[in-house]
């Protein structure tokens, strides 16, 4: 297991230290769960996204939007250290989680991922039964308690229990795409995370399934903090509290395209009265 200190969750008063360039706090804004400070991610030395700094608030839905290649998926994968799995990927700057540096030497990536769950673009159920898909996480984490109860609770929170309670032992591959994606959300809820990261969770789904997942997200934000990457601006407008807009620009004199954050603000403001003209052009559909 190595000499890894467990990630201690700070309970109260541990506000992420304010840093120059970070957005100012707004009125009733809750506690910051993530603080990004000048984060740059490189793949084999080439920056994919550069100089990102903003705070993500607890019990809110934060949307990351922008054109393809702007690094929003790369950035969200920093938040639970999934980039560790990609050979050649390096993260510079500081990613604070409850004030603690996620990339500090004594932080174990496996511990991070226990607390920060992730839902992927394409539903990726395991080739097992519905029950075993949910039970997998609690089992590998050695969670105590009645497994049937854990499974029922997760499926209920994932708004899936009524649809599947009579066929828990059948293969997850027999479900529709939308059901599979809700299963993946429920699977993530079963390990009782703190945050749920969603990387374009609806891009492979039809509008009705998308609507159900959006409803589910709005319910879940009472209990969890959610960060969502989406290509769909209407989706960001419908569900999120705050939105970060990213863009992609060619490096000066270089061949590489690097993502940058243009603006981060309350979703209403981003969509109705953005401060940057590039944001306005994108959200009104003139570019992108």
């Amino acid at each position, binding site marked *: 297991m190595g000499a890894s200190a467990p990630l201690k969750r700070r309970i109260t008063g541990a506000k992420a230290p304010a840093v120059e360039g970070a957005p100012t706090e707004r009125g009733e804004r809750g506690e910051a769960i993530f603080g990004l400070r000048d984060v740059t991610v490189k793949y084999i030395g080439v920056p994919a996204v550069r100089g990102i700094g903003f705070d993500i608030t607890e019990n809110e839905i934060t949307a990351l939007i922008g054109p393809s290649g702007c690094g929003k998926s790369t950035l969200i994968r920093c938040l*639970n250290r*999934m980039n560790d*799995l990609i*050979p050649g990927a390096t993260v510079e700057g500081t990613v604070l989680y409850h004030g603690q540096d996620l990339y500090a030497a004594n932080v174990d990536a*496996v*511990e991070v*991922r*226990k*607390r920060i*769950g*992730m839902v*992927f673009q*394409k539903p*990726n*159920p*395991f*080739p097992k039964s519905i029950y075993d898909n949910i039970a*997998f*996480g609690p089992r*590998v*984490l050695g969670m105590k308690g009645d497994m049937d109860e854990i499974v029922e609770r997760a499926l209920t929170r994932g708004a899936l229990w009524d649809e599947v309670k009579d066929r828990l032992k059948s293969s997850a*591959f027999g479900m529709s795409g939308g059901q599979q994606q809700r299963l*993946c959300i429920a*699977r*993530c809820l079963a*390990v009782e995370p703190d945050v749920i990261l969603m990387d374009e969770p609806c891009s492979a789904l039809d509008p009705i399934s998308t609507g159900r997942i959006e409803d589910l997200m709005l319910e879940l934000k009472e209990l969890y903090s959610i960060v969502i990457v989406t290509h769909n601006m209407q989706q960001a407008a419908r569900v999120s509290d705050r939105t970060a807009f990213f863009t992609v620009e060619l490096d000066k004199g270089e061949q590489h395209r690097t993502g940058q954050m243009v603006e981060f603000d309350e979703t209403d403001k981003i969509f109705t009265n953005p401060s940057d003209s590039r944001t306005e052009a994108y959200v009104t559909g003139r570019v992108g």
Partner: protein
Amino acid sequence: MRAARSSKLRDAAFRIALLTCIGISLLLLGILLVDVVRDGIGQLSFDFLNRFSSINAKRSGIEAALMGTLWLMAVCAGFIVPIGVATAVYLEEYADNGRWWNRLIEVNIQNLAAVPSIVYGILGLAFLVRGPLSLGNVVLAGGLTLGLLVLPVVIISGREAIRAVPSSIREGSLALGATRWQTIWRQVLPASIPGIATGVILALSRAIGETAPLIVVGAATFIAFNPSGLDSQFTALPIQIFDWISRPSNDINNYKPLAAGGILVLMILLLAMNSIAIWLRNRYEQKW
């Protein structure tokens, strides 16, 4: 129009040429089968399977050879499954292809698959039968020699089976806080078992017909007892067949039908193993 007709003609001629080639190979196989079945079918009986080899052709059987072959296959399987699967897991899941030693291992495994079997026989003789291990010409040495011979087949097919498991499954598992080892043990390996098993069976069906390495490691040609353990002397079906064919036959003792009977038994075993492999592959093939 003329051009069209001539290209049509060429098309037809090509088709006929291909069909002729298939016909020739099928015809040869057919002749071989008919010949062996005609000579050997009269031999197939319970007594044939249940008698030891004898100078008297009428009282000869293949019991010692059949039991020897089964022992060899058991030793071979016990050796290639753990070593082959572990190697495949290392190469697919852990090895960094950027490192020269991993590429060296990979190239060498592919080369080993092409080494003539007699070379493995010499290796077995030098290292297992004599030399460092000095096991003698026993079942263990024979089985391990055959294992070395077919190990590359198991590794290559095991790697293919592991590679066929999509990375989204690994990501889904890791994102729940499972460790790398838990992900491999509980997700990747179970999902790739049908492919691995198919590879193992095909490897064994290659090993079962090997003659040359067994001759070199000193399989007995005439034996009238079953192997009693790993340290027992042994013979095997191909050796027994070879022995019968090479003996001078006369009107009193005609060994040729015995050889044909032995070939039939070997072929039935082979076909059965390959059928199981095909069945496994079709029955448990995972549609991702």
